[in-house]
């Protein structure tokens, strides 16, 4: 627990194999004589492995997401195929009906005239086209929604400066600055009154905790200079499939970081 910043640097260098000669000897002697320090080294060694595992697990999540998206598309193709089959069987049965019951559209040999065949095929193509374009539209919306979800959660909290001393709630901001949004919210919620910046950070904590509606309610009434509220409002609105209320500010994205700009650019025309 007494680990200092210098200790961490030293342990990092040791675990990376960067210590040699006297430095290495001194380090190993310290480990041998200080059980607590040796334990810290063990913790730092486990941290490196834990970090690697977290990266690889993130990639597994990414691939699972790709897989489920593909399944949606594959499912869509099946639906489309079913529609096509329906279209064709409808045409077949209609043709058959015509053959069986059509009074005057048959020629004397019981065959459907060429014009009716053409019309039936054209009607089927129309149905297929309609179903196809509807499905494509649905898919487009779906993929945009999924992309938006990624946009919101792909980056930390997209705030350029994290200040532990900002606002009237230092404990909440301490947790916020470390990305522990759940813990930060506990303190934000305890406060009787929050100033503008702190409200903004509370909204972002809510957003990162998945409480999107509550985050939106705060951002909607927040009129605050110096914070990219419009960006987050816009992202939530897009994510909820409602019109962006302040599209010009969302696209202007004055206070956005490069990552945020990259996101807004995708939804704003030049």
């Amino acid at each position, binding site marked *: *627990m007494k*680990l200092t*910043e210098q200790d*961490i640097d030293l342990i990092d260098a040791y675990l990376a194999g960067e210590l040699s000669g006297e430095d290495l000897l001194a380090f190993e002697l310290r480990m041998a004589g200080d059980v607590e320090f040796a334990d810290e080294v*063990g*913790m*730092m*060694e*486990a*941290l*490196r*492995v*834990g*970090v*690697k*595992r*977290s*990266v*690889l*697990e*993130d*990639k*597994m999540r*990414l*691939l*699972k997401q*790709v*897989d489920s998206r*593909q399944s949606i598309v594959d499912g869509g193709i099946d639906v489309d195929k079913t529609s096509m089959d329906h279209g064709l069987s409808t045409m077949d049965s209609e043709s058959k009906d015509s053959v069986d019951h059509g009074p005057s559209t048959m020629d004397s040999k019981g065959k459907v005239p060429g014009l009716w065949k053409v019309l039936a095929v054209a009607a089927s193509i129309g149905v297929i086209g309609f179903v196809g374009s509807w499905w494509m539209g649905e898919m487009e919306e779906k993929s945009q929604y999924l992309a938006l979800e990624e946009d919101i959660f792909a*980056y*930390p*909290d997209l705030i*350029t*400066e*994290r200040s532990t001393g900002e606002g009237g709630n230092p404990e909440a901001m301490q947790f916020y*600055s*470390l*990305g*522990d*949004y759940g813990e930060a919210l506990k303190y934000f919620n305890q406060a009787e009154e929050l100033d503008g910046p702190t409200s903004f950070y509370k909204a972002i904590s809510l957003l*990162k905790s998945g409480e999107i509606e509550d985050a939106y309610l705060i951002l909607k009434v927040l009129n605050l200079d110096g914070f990219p509220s419009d960006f987050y409002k816009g992202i939530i609105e897009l994510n909820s499939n409602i019109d962006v209320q302040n599209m010009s500010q969302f696209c202007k994205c004055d206070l956005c*970081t*490069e*990552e945020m700009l990259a996101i807004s650019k995708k939804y704003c025309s030049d």
Partner: protein
Amino acid sequence: MDWITEIKTDENAALRQLYASYKGDCIGWLTSKGNVQLVDAKEIFQTAVVILYDNVMSGKLTELNSNIKSYLIGICKNKAYELFRAQKKTSTTDEFPTVRSYIMEGVEEKQALEGRIDALTAALNKLGDPCRLLLQLFYYKKMSMDEITAQMAYKNASTTKNLKYKCIKRLQLAMVGHKQEKG
């Protein structure tokens, strides 16, 4: 296509493309010749792609002697399948047991570190971003403080270094809490 460069340049896009391109071949082999259930075959193939990614990022794989498809099917056939069978024998509540098995393969003194690694991974996930991302960039991607500062848009390298220190202290605290809960 030079997949190694693609992975190094834009890893998520490359992994998505890799997955979509070779899913059918690898999963097809596993389900037809490997007699593996579809859901398990997917898990194995996902692990194989992740192992490929790790090999590229760690510098173990710098060039491909065969094509990427053969390389991936090779992992699917051997390593990932074995890992999956191994994890089947042990009951675990891990979200990604195949990744855990792969990670633990490379760890010396497994028994001493295993519990600690599990606890640390859980604490790291609980801690969330920016700590999680910062530590990933530093310890996994081996980025310098200046590079991390630029990527995460912090003020300067000393702010980033200080945040890294705070993050490790918070992880330490979480670990103490974990020990107390267990003890």
